[in-house]
């Protein structure tokens, strides 16, 4: 299982300043089991990259190839299967159902393609310190709590690649480390790769490859 980036560049980016980037307009290949760290300042296209990789948008030139298949040629059904079985994401802006409880939010993801039994929801929530929030509507949870819900949600399904888009922006150091630990364990369980995009280097992510966007 390989995720390849071939000469990728968002169409709304200028060609010239991108010569310094180690990702845009390059040919890259990510394999299962790798921990990829992408350091990117604001406005360098971090979220765009994550969305491209997740198949949310396709305003780019170049290609993204997953398992020898161009993402551009995926049908709507193919994309759904890709997200359900192969790639999971923690969005920067969380994207929870505001009117559903924390538990419902997690279960909606879990039931789609269950990697864990339902008991695991409470266990993980407990571990990240939101065990008492399971029956609260997600819109009344703090950003920090919502971010942890989004992280647990990403871990409910099988995946080959876990995409993280500034997953700790609302978390303190201790909670971030805790969550990172959980994600590493879960990735190991699936022998999956993590592609972690953030503003700066984070010491507790044991990356195997580092790129500057």
């Amino acid at each position, binding site marked *: 299982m390989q995720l390849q980036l071939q000469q990728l560049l968002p169409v709304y980016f200028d060609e010239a300043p991108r010569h310094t980037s180690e990702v845009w307009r390059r040919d890259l290949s990510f394999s299962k089991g790798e921990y990829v760290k992408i350091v990117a300042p604001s406005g360098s296209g971090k979220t765009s990259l994550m969305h491209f990789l997740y198949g949310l948008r396709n305003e780019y030139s170049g290609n993204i190839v997953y398992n020898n298949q161009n993402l551009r040629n995926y049908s709507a059904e193919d994309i*759904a299967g890709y997200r359900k079985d192969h790639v999971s994401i923690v969005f920067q802006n969380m994207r929870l*159902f505001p009117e559903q409880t924390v538990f419902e939010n997690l279960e*909606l993801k879990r039931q789609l393609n269950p990697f864990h039994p339902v008991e695991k929801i409470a266990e993980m929530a407990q571990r990240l310190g939101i065990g008492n929030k399971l029956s609260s509507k997600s819109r009344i949870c703090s950003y920090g709590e919502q971010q942890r819900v989004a992280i647990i949600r990403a871990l409910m399904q099988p995946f080959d690649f876990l995409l993280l888009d500034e997953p700790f922006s609302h978390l303190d150091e201790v909670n971030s480390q805790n969550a990172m630990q959980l994600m590493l364990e879960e990735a190991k369980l699936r022998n999956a790769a993590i592609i972690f995009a953030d503003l700066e280097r984070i010491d507790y992510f044991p990356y195997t490859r580092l790129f500057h966007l």
Partner: protein
Amino acid sequence: MAVSFKPIRSLLQTGTNSGSRWFSYIGLGIGVLLLLCSIQMFINIQQLLSGESPRKQGYDYISISKTITNETMGQLDKNLFNENDIKEMAAQPFIQGVSPLVATRFQVLLSAGDIIPFSTNLFLESLDNNFLDTVPPNFTWHEGQDYIPIIFSSDFLEIYNVFAPGYGLPQLSEATVSQVVVYITCNGENGVKQTFRGSIVALSDRVNSIIVPKNFLDWANNKFGNTNDVRASRLYVRTKDANNPTFLNYLQQKNYKVNKDKTKFGRVKQVLQGIFSGLGIFGLLVVILALMLFSFYLQLMIARSKDNLQLLLQMGYSPNWLSKNVSKQFIPVYILVVLIALGLTEVTQWAFHHFAMFDRPELSSLLHWTVIITAILLIALSLITNYRMVKKLLYKLV
């Protein structure tokens, strides 16, 4: 493990605007009811008027003439049927035979001799034998024969018996009328004059005329009236069903006049079928309108739940699965609406049969199978349009 739609149902915001949903349900119900009732009534009319009336050899015989208007008065060529008219009419699929009623083109004087002191100017006509209801074996003539057999309209005999006493003439029974020998004098324009003997050999209920053998009239018209031209003021038409709307339409279009009484049922049927066709089309329009209203409601619902549905798709829910399940939500309602309409149609049919038609045996209190098939088709139509609509809207969100 199958993915459950249950937790997703609450993500679809039907919102406070359930009024439009109920309106569309009611609209759909009314439309379906109208449509089904119209179809059933259409079938009822067919069954009632399909003409089980006793007919000779299964045919109706109708006399047709051209309508004489103020404009065509005195123009023989416009008021008479020429050969082309006859050919054209014979070619129509609903007509099984045409025969012109050819009249005398010379003056005829009839007198009853010495026994009954009665004489009158009159006319003779001829018609193909197979258009006559009674043809006795002696209804023949050959050249040189001075005896002419006559088939006389029973209506004319009745009229004679009405005025006979006033003129001091004897009234005649059907049996004695054939005993009376009459003298027919033909006066040609060319001064040729000849008198024949004649007697009534049969009475006809069908043809309102005085019929003589065809070959006699052809010969006489040639001799006394100097014409061979086949021009008839009346045509006799043989048809399977005088009430056939296509037949009546054809006559109307050609501006031909026909005995209204014979085709009365046909006209009633035509009008009723028109009314119920109109009602059926109206019902269909209401169904379409209701489906459109419902699609607006669906669009509204999907627009309101857009964020939630989009997030579901982002999470990896299949758009096809979502479309199927979202549209499935409405299957029970659709089926219920159509079933209620079907039930009401059945009640209407029963009431119509029982109270308006007094349980006539031609009709049934139960619905015709086409009505039930239509109801099933309508359910299928609603479900398919619904599914396609949802699918289209959801794929836009991907």
